């Protein structure tokens, strides 16, 4: 029983690259996907970097991507705001706020909270609280407790969202991975492709796999998932397995990922009707 895959979502850090290094085989795999006209979105929770600087970072690592193929938790927030016609009070740093320029923000009916130390002070938080208690929707880019800043851990978005939830007696809608909203909005960008035909590939079992509700234990003939324990071998040429299939080989396209940081193997093998040669 073949499972049709019409589009792909790929996590970035730990899946496509680790820091400034592209993982081996990634370039070839992506070229294969492009040649097969399989659309790919790069999905990431990274909201600290602006879209431009994220694309630059990947460029320096040797991967050229279009801005509109990168879907971040900020992109998800933007899509939610436009989908639901929200007028947000932004608690975002300037570089992130740029993604929202041009949207109506007068008489806000929504508070959008991202990683924004310059917004996390009494006056701005009070302004946000007064909107929330007056019925505005509270939307959070993510709920991280803290983040690494130089040598220390600094208070994250989640701390201030928790504060607003406490005083506003409400629950924030989180748009970052692994929320359903994130994946729903990413799939919506494929304009009509059903979620069941989209494959999500990532290194974080909680944020990427479970978040996208990809089945990890079901077995299809010729379509296997294996989740194994940690490997010591770190970065291996798993992507090279992909490169070697080439276009002349039949049956399956092996997409495999080696995950350096979490050292967790996910081996899916799928049927790609478009690539099968009889």
């Amino acid at each position, binding site marked *: 029983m073949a499972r049709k895959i019409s589009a792909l979502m790929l996590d970035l850090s730990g899946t496509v690259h680790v820091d400034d290094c592209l993982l081996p085989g990634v370039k070839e795999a992506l070229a294969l996907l492009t040649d097969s006209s399989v659309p790919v979105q790069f999905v990431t929770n990274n909201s600290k970097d602006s879209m431009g600087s994220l694309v630059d970072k990947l460029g320096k690592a040797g991967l050229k991507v279009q801005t509109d193929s990168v879907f971040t938790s900020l992109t998800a927030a933007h899509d939610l705001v436009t989908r639901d016609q929200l007028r947000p009070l932004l608690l975002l740093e300037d570089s992130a706020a740029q993604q929202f320029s041009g949207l109506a923000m007068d008489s806000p009916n929504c508070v959008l909270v991202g990683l924004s*130390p*310059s917004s*996390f*002070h*009494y*006056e701005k*938080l*009070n302004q946000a*609280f*007064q909107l929330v*208690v007056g019925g505005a929707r509270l939307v959070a880019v993510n709920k991280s*407790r*803290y983040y690494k800043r130089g040598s*220390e*851990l*600094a*208070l*994250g978005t*989640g*701390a*201030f969202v*928790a*504060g*607003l*939830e*406490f*005083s506003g*007696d409400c629950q924030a809608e989180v748009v970052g991975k692994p929320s359903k909203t994130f994946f729903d909005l990413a799939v919506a960008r494929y304009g009509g492709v059903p979620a069941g035909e989209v494959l999500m590939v990532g290194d974080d079992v909680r944020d990427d796999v479970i978040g996208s509700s990809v089945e990890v234990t079901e077995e299809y003939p010729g379509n296997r998932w294996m989740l194994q324990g940690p490997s010591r071998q770190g970065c291996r040429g798993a992507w090279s397995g992909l490169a070697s299939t080439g276009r002349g080989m039949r049956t399956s396209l092996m997409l495999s990922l080696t995950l350096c940081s979490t050292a967790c193997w996910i081996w899916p093998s799928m049927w790609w009707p478009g690539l099968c040669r009889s």
Partner: protein
Amino acid sequence: MSFNGSPVQGVLCDITGVLAESSSESDGVVVPGSIEAINRLFEAGIKVKFVTNESARTRASLHAKLTRLGFTINIEDILTPSLAMVVLLKEQKLRPHLLVHKNVMEDFRGVETEDPNCVVLGDAVDEFSYVNLNTAFQVLLKSSSTQLFSLGKGKFYKEDSGLSLDVGPFTAALEFASERKAVICGKPDKTFFHAGLTALGLEAEKVVMVGDDIVSDVGGAQAAGIRGVQVRTGKFRPSDENHPLVKPDLIVDNLKGLVDTILK
């Protein structure tokens, strides 16, 4: 002197929202009938202690304000969270990192603050900057047993015509980030109400608590075995008439309404 059939020998009385409405500009506005109501309680021989979660002023400053507004009360009859906190710090030999309103810093004079081994959060208002909150967070990160204390955990208070954030959301923020629960020194914490009963020299059954915060004042008092009375002044909202969690022993328009009932 009783209500609901039980005698009332003492009253724990909230200040803001019961005696007077808060204001950021001035001393506030006396709730009509409150001055006379307090005087009538004294004349009837009922003991009164004023319990407040106010953590942005010293007891002396609160007393001066109430005197200016026309109330006649003794300074020792006012119980604040910072005063209760200092007792606790000395008992447990703790050295606090203080993120509190600058006005209450003098309540902590004499408390060692070098090389802090705990964090005390109060209603710091504009001192709640990202830098200051992050510094407090770093102290908590020293060890998983570093305690976070909070002078009350109010969600908000009513000021002039709007609601303003109280200390609670900042406590919630540090609790979330550091994955630990704060010890609350103030309403609705039982310890604070017991301190009030000790000050009155009365058992819970003989005392009534009157306040405007249904969860913090009324619910907190009831959890400490004290009858809780809700006033329709201060931060009262119509939805409090049917609160999902707290059923006050009595709801009155204001403090005068309670005293009328007690002295009937």
